[in-house]
């Protein structure tokens, strides 16, 4: 039971204009600790609904969600669940509550009623991890988009989460901000052993993920590694995804008789592969 987020036969229905719509149909998922997971899906495929089920912001119509064995239906656990499962939203502006960076970070632990010395320690650490120490006393409305999104993550880190759910965090950032944020997420996953669940539109964000989940019309249609999903034509057909350019290149080369055995998804991996061949 423990040490994972588990969705058991989860269904979620919404009533829109007296008309029932199924946002999620019978989803069974296990998110074990330590993984970097990407969730892909078109608009209206149920990604956001799925994200909000993870920390009990919404409750399933049928089925149960367990966080480390705690049922999200049980109101006694709700603070524990929410401090373990941190949530980052799309718009960085609308999740920053305080005017000063330092106070923003203290908001979560304050709600957990922690003593001030402990809050101070956690704020120091989170600022350090997210590279915001220099901005500690800065006004939050003067930060850039990327900095705001990093601040949002830092202020979740002060609650010492085990899981971090990010709902399209890069969609309002520019290229460099997006690249930087993904690198920070990788660092959190590798160095601090925080499970990352990254929901996104952009396949570039999740090429190095351990596991990819593809949602379509409220159901999980694929659950595999990025390479397996992007390199097999059947999987691409099922998911309706467009493979990254590098995968197209590798597939083309393989068709022409060059046998590339490696799983190459990004330019960096390709460069590494070629260098190895030359030696």
């Amino acid at each position: 039971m423990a040490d994972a987020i588990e969705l058991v036969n989860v269904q979620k229905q919404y009533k829109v204009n007296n008309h029932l719509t199924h946002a999620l149909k019978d989803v069974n998922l296990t998110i074990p600790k330590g993984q970097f997971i990407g969730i892909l899906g078109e608009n209206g495929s149920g990604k956001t609904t799925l994200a909000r089920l993870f920390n009990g912001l919404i409750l399933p119509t049928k089925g149960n969600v367990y966080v480390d064995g705690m049922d999200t239906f049980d109101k006694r656990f709700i603070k524990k669940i929410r401090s373990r499962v941190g949530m980052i939203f799309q718009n960085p502006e609308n999740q920053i509550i305080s005017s000063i960076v330092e106070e923003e970070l203290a908001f979560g632990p304050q709600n957990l009623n922690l003593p001030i010395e402990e809050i101070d320690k956690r704020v120091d650490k989170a600022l350090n991890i997210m590279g915001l120490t220099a901005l500690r006393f800065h006004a939050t409305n003067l930060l850039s988009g990327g900095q705001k999104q990093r601040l949002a993550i830092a202020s979740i880190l002060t609650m010492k989460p085990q899981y971090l759910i990010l709902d399209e965090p890069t969609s309002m950032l520019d290229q460099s901000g997006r690249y930087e944020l993904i690198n920070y997420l990788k660092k959190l996953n590798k160095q601090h052993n925080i499970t990352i669940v990254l929901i996104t539109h952009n396949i570039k964000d999740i090429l190095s993920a351990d596991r990819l989940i593809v949602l379509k019309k409220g159901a999980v249609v694929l659950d595999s590694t990025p390479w397996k999903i992007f390199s097999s034509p059947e999987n691409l057909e099922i998911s309706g995804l467009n493979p990254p350019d590098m995968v197209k290149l590798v597939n083309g080369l393989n068709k022409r008789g060059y046998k590339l055995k490696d799983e190459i998804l990004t330019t960096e991996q390709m460069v590494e592969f070629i260098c190895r061949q030359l030696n």
Partner: protein
Amino acid sequence: MNGLKIGQYVRGNSFLHKLDPRTKLLGCFVMIITSLLKNNTSALYINVVLLLLCILLCGIKFKQFVKMVRPIRYMLLLTFIFQSIFISGEKLIDLWVISVSREGLHIGIVTIARIFVLYFCSILLTRTTTPAQLTAAIEALLFPMVRIGIPINKFATLINVSLRFIPVIIEEAETITCAQKARGAPFNSKSLIKKFKAIFSVLIPVLASSLQRAADIAIAMESRCYTGEINHNRIKGLSFGKSDIIALGLISTSIVIVLV
């Protein structure tokens, strides 16, 4: 929109920054009340002197001070002129139909001093106190009201969040104004009705998006364990020191003067 706005917290190390936020809040409250009381101008003038002292202590240079007064310069000037012209009494200057009376001049000066006190009390308070400190102070001072069922802690959070979103909403209003101008909204029309309609074309989208924003913020706060409970640790974090006693002593003199 990236400049420093009036009412924004400025980090510093001055006497005022170090004061307990409760002292500052109480001080502002007392100053404003004593300044607005009728027929007692000595307290008002003492408050003005105290405030000028605070501005000095805060390390605000003369140039900055002038910049702060700029937005209200016309208000000050017009109230002074109107008060001094329209209040009848012993005539000092008599030019054709315009006459300035001694009483008018006096009331004009008093009004300016009052506006000055109101304006600078709030500016100094928000300049030297972070919103969270302010929230804690409100929570601590009004704590007894929780007993009679008034949710002071929620009220305090409300103030904190509104302070945070004032600049964001102003910025949004500017963007929408530009967007509507680009579509030909007649902001510069001479007809008042047309102008009024143009203003509505900004007001309604701003309101709609603020409601959407409010829903987003509520979800973000909820997922960070906000439940609306009273936070005792936040109040405990406040400390009352020697300088607070001095400051309260100074302020209480102005009360004494009013009462005597």
